[in-house]
């Protein structure tokens, strides 16, 4: 009577500490330039080396420019951080996928692409969106820099076991509804703190119908409801995706792995601490109107009013609308926008660019819109070119940039100017997330495409 989560967690506990957290063994550690340098410094101060460099991979993604990657990074601080990662990897024998190399990309995009991410694993990274990898039936979650240092030193971390939540979405999804819309719908239902203290398992027929790309988008966003992570039991869709990838098991090893992976599902009588059930038919394309990912509504709806709120809830809500320049009762459709961003670990995979390109095919980018189309990795970039999507994009007035986290968190030059509205396929609409004063509207690549060609918030279903 174990959940999927229990099965993987229990098989990775090295030791239970009395009155404390578990010592959890980590199968795969992913690192990037922003949250690793202080951990490397700490390690060196203790005179330690990385214990299992072969279970660690590195790539610079948060800081990197998305044009002219063949040139040296202009921003001195960014360049220094990227060079520090490269140097630290060389010192400790860690494989480094540098800027411009075949393996480069956003850390949560390249792991699955290379077949490093596999069912049943424990995966951590100093980045909250590590939850992405849960799409494969892995326990994957974001950690702080102290914990990065723990994994370097011991390949383990100390973690209290979270509670378990089941979120089921059943039935057929409506036309124009994507995994991103499911994610924004669920977060709007349970709020940005609804999942706190829990690890989520997503299940139900609507979830099973999603591709691996869609599942990654959904699990990626699980952190936005406050959960440590999200996961989906592996099935034939998962096995087909993993098979044949560079680091996937081969030959007899594949057969052994597959037999184990098929046991990775919650038992029929497994007990969850919290359960939510939704109908796929109730979900429409979503868009956010406020300054946290829980402030999302169906695109045909109006900005809710704050009548039912009191005290600091009401003040926080009104502060958020003021930042966005919106009023209660406003209709979202028809509002002017300035920027469109397609990319990030949430929606930077090939399926996202196919969806965007199919929509804009034969149409033209609106004159008032600046669009940043940023592939999640070099492999995605190559695939976009190979499938002829780049010609479609260019004919419609869009330019393809180079891989990186880009405008999702605006650590590089891809910043949305103050006061401007950005329809973004990324994961957070916090104040200033895409640049100081920037106003972010989270949506799917399809809804972003509709806004990009009309210049205003548009229901993509009108064109489908």
């Amino acid at each position, binding site marked *: 009577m174990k959940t999927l989560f229990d099965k993987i967690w229990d098989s990775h506990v090295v030791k239970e500490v009395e009155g404390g957290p578990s010592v959890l063994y980590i199968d795969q550690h992913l690192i990037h330039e922003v949250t690793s340098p202080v951990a490397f410094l700490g390690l060196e101060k203790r005179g330690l080396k990385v214990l299992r460099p072969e279970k660690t991979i590195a790539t610079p993604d948060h800081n990197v420019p998305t044009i002219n990657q063949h040139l040296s990074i202009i921003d001195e601080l960014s360049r220094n951080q990227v060079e520090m990662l490269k140097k630290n990897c060389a010192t400790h024998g860690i494989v480094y996928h540098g800027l411009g190399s075949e393996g480069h990309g956003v850390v949560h995009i390249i792991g699955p692409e290379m077949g490093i991410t596999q069912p049943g694993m424990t995966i951590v990274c100093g980045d909250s969106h590590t939850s992405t990898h849960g799409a494969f039936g892995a326990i994957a979650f974001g950690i702080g820099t102290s914990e990065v240092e723990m994994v370097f030193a011991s390949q383990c971390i100390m973690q209290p076991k979270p509670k378990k939540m089941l979120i089921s979405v059943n039935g057929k999804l409506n036309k124009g509804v994507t995994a991103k819309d499911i994610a924004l719908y669920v977060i709007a239902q349970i709020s940005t703190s609804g999942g*706190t203290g829990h690890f989520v398992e997503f299940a139900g027929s609507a979830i099973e119908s999603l591709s691996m790309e869609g599942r990654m988008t959904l699990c990626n966003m699980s952190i936005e409801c406050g959960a*440590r992570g999200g996961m989906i039991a592996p099935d034939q869709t998962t096995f087909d995706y993993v098979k044949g990838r560079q680091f996937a098991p081969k030959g007899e090893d594949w057969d052994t792995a597959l037999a184990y992976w098929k046991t990775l599902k919650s038992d029929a009588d497994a007990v969850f601490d919290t359960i939510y059930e939704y109908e796929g038919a109730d979900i429409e394309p979503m868009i956010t109107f406020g300054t946290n990912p829980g402030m999302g509504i169906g695109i045909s709806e109006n900005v809710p009013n704050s009548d039912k709120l009191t005290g600091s809830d009401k003040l926080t809500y009104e502060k958020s609308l003021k930042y966005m320049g919106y009023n209660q009762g406003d209709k979202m459709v028809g509002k002017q926008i300035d920027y469109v961003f397609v990319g990030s670990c949430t929606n930077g995979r090939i399926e996202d660019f196919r969806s965007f390109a199919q929509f804009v095919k034969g149409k033209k980018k609106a004159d008032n819109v600046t669009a940043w189309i940023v592939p999640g990795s070099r492999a995605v970039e190559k695939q976009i070119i190979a499938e002829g999507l780049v010609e479609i994009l260019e004919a419609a007035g869009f330019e393809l940039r180079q891989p990186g986290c880009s405008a999702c968190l605006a650590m590089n030059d891809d910043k949305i100017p103050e006061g401007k509205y950005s329809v973004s396929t990324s994961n957070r609409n916090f104040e200033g997330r895409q640049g100081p004063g920037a106003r972010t509207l989270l949506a799917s690549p399809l809804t972003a495409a509709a806004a990009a060609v009309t210049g205003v918030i548009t229901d993509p279903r009108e064109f489908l």
Partner: protein
Amino acid sequence: MAYDKFTTLTSPAVPLPIENIDTDQIIPARFLKAVERKGFGDNLFRDWRYDKSSQPIADFPLNQSKYSGKILVGGKNFGSGSSREHAAWAIYDYGFRVVVSSFFADIFQGNALNNGILPVVVSPEFLEKIFTAIEADQDTPFEVDLQNQKFTICASGESIGFDINPYKKHCLTHGLDDIDYLVSMKEEIAAFETK
């Protein structure tokens, strides 16, 4: 990372009665480019604290000299968002040792504990009492007693118990971190790997 041992603290508090204070507000991403852990306190709440021309915004509590102390009191769901430990570093570097809220995001709570900051969870009602007490007298002291897991509004004597994992409590009171412990488990970890 070594930090000061934590036992008992008596101090006034700085109020920040805003909900869902996310890590992008605590320390915006553009200030995460350092490769060493220093100076983050200068950019704590940067975009709420300073305007575009880097002038202090007068009505933000950190800019009001009437507020002081080593305790920060925030609205519910404090620390949501990113895993950046820079958020905890900025709070510690600025001089806070305790953050009080009715609810913390998981990763932030862990990062705080790993850096010698005590996150104290109180009931929503008690949180309102704390804000009211500060409003009445900005110098009013609060006592944080980690040993007895008790938070007290000194003026009224009202207090509330708070939870903390016993292992983490031991770490905080002795200024220890997890890495020494994990490194000492080397053989057990190696044995686990061969299973």
